[in-house]
């Protein structure tokens, strides 16, 4: 099967859906002729022109608000925000408007808006270009929050996002952009709320997201050589969260670790731990553990940056500690 990078796979999803649905349009800074700071729209301007690939001034609050009105009136905006850090300027529009309008209109209005762009710590980007912030959006009723970890998922999940009628935060980790995976030519969709079992095992369950999947896989390789088999689960979407798949896995393994680059307090790991404790308590042979990025603004200097992101050795140690409980 052909291989595509994460970015190319997501771009193919967008291209396919734009070809099919003339009401889809993209807004963002440099997403027209330039094709996007991260090549998210390369080639599409030549096909669809400026009404559907709309370069904007630097107006994050402005374009989110404008797209809200557009989504309420029959079009399907895609907000290409480049770095998630930038749309924090539009937080009021997102939380008070985008997330609430379907509910407040008793479902008579739809909010088919996809907000997509980069997250994550990578390459000394420093604290205004390294955020992930997905727990903020998970905390708000009304958002779908998607965090794909590979090219195959990126395409299938973006297709689903573009077909749906809900606001979707589609968050692409920078460290994954150039990573390749097999992506079929045939059309496919990946439903929201369906986790992937990345690796099967019985000794412990590790739930991980985005760029952490690779690090957990490395640790699992090491442990496999010692005859210890770890199960790895990628929720793929954190809202909705597929807690059933996690519960089933914990039922089998009795041990759970959640590995997330994002901050611990009130994070995804805390949510998963609470739900598993509530519903799977009897399955647990050890306390649930979390491994998170350090709860600090992201520093620039490489040794400091490295110190705030969980690394493979820490993942391995966290699994060993969990197994020793």
């Amino acid at each position, binding site marked *: 099967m052909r291989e595509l990078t994460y970015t190319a796979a997501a771009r193919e999803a967008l291209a396919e859906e734009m070809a099919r649905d003339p009401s889809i349009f993209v807004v963002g800074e*440099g997403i027209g002729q330039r094709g996007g700071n991260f090549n998210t729209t390369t080639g599409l301007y030549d096909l669809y022109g400026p009404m559907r690939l709309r370069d904007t*001034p630097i107006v994050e609050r402005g374009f989110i608000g404008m797209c809200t009105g557009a989504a309420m009136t029959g079009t399907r905006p895609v907000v290409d925000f480049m770095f998630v850090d930038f749309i924090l300027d539009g937080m009021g529009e997102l939380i008070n408007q985008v997330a609430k309008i379907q509910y407040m209109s008793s479902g008579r209005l739809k909010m088919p808006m996809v907000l997509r762009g980069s997250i994550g710590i990578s390459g000394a980007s*420093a604290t*205004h270009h390294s955020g992930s912030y997905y727990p903020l959006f998970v905390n708000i009723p009304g958002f779908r929050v998607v965090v794909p970890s590979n090219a195959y998922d990126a395409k299938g999940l973006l297709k689903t996002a573009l077909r749906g009628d809900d606001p979707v935060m589609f968050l692409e980790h920078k460290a994954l952009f150039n990573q390749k995976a097999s992506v079929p030519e045939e059309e496919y969709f990946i439903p929201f709320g369906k986790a992937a079992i990345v690796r099967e095992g019985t000794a412990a369950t590790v739930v991980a997201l985005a760029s952490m999947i690779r690090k957990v896989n490395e640790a699992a390789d090491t442990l496999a050589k010692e005859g210890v088999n770890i199960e790895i689960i990628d929720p793929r979407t954190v809202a909705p969260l597929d807690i059933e798949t996690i519960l089933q896995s914990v039922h089998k393994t009795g041990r759970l670790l959640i590995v997330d680059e994002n901050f611990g307090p009130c994070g995804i790991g805390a949510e998963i731990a609470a739900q598993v404790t509530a519903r799977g308590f009897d399955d647990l042979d050890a306390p649930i553990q979390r491994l998170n990025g*350090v709860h600090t603004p992201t520093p*620039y*200097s490489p*040794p*400091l940056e490295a*110190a705030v992101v969980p690394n493979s050795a820490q993942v391995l140690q966290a699994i060993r500690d969990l197994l020793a409980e």
Partner: protein
Amino acid sequence: MADLSKEQYLALYRQMFEIRRTEEQLAKAHQAGLVHGACHTYVGEEAVATGVCAHLTAKDSVFSTHRGHGHALAKGVPPREVMAELFGRVTGCSRGRGGSMHLFSPEVGMMGTSGIVGPCILQATGAGYSAKLMNTGAVGVAFFGDGASNNGAFHEGLNLATIWDLPVIFVCENNMYATEIAFSYATRNTNMAERARSYGMSAVAVDGNDVLAVYQAADEAVRRARAGNGPTLIEGKTYRTRAHSEGMPSLGTYRTQEELDAWKARDPISTYKAKLLQSGAAAESDFEQIETAVQRLVDESFEFAKNSPYPDPSTVSNHIFSAS
């Protein structure tokens, strides 16, 4: 020509030259992998920061953008601390935590460059508020690009500073592009001064490649602010002659070679030098002296930065709160 002493004329030259040489060194260091993150240079725009900051003291506050090396240097951050910061070293002005887009040196009134476009405009307005409340006579200064002038922060900040007569100088560096988006695409009214005046404030457009024009406009603006007569917007029309960010193509498809060449011919440093020589305000030997001294400073700064240690990872969570 403005009526300055020879020392003042040459100080402006020295400052612009220091910014230029420091950034040329940074650009080389970026290619060599010594600069770890993004690096937006100010090459071609040096006259703006230089002409404005010449009127400021350490108690005046500067708030800057992603293209802020020149603002930091002109405000008095030593080149060694800027270089060390971009090299990620503990001796950098932000102790390695920030890099190019987070240069902090409050000791000299450098209140930060920013990776987010817009906030500097509002924060400078707040500095003006502090100065007015505490009657310090200080001014707040925001440097920002044409792109930022279409952001809500611009409109909100200008309006607030005007209705409360705050001592703020808004310095818009109109280099005609926001990354690759032309200013003429991003707004129908490209007359920045007129936009500012529509809020009821004083505003002036100057040749941003003419350090003396900037100097004079800033002189008036700072006097007005210190006298309690409210904010001013200064638009410096200028051009960045390097890429938006190091590693990107310097020309790109959004601008033409002719345009770039025309602006290079209007280089703020060499044209100023020629002007001073021609008017007899300074002699060739004066420039030689300055250029040699600045080059030595930059070389030493580079060695200092390169040989400085990285921060200790165990300190990574210090200073999130005041008592740590």
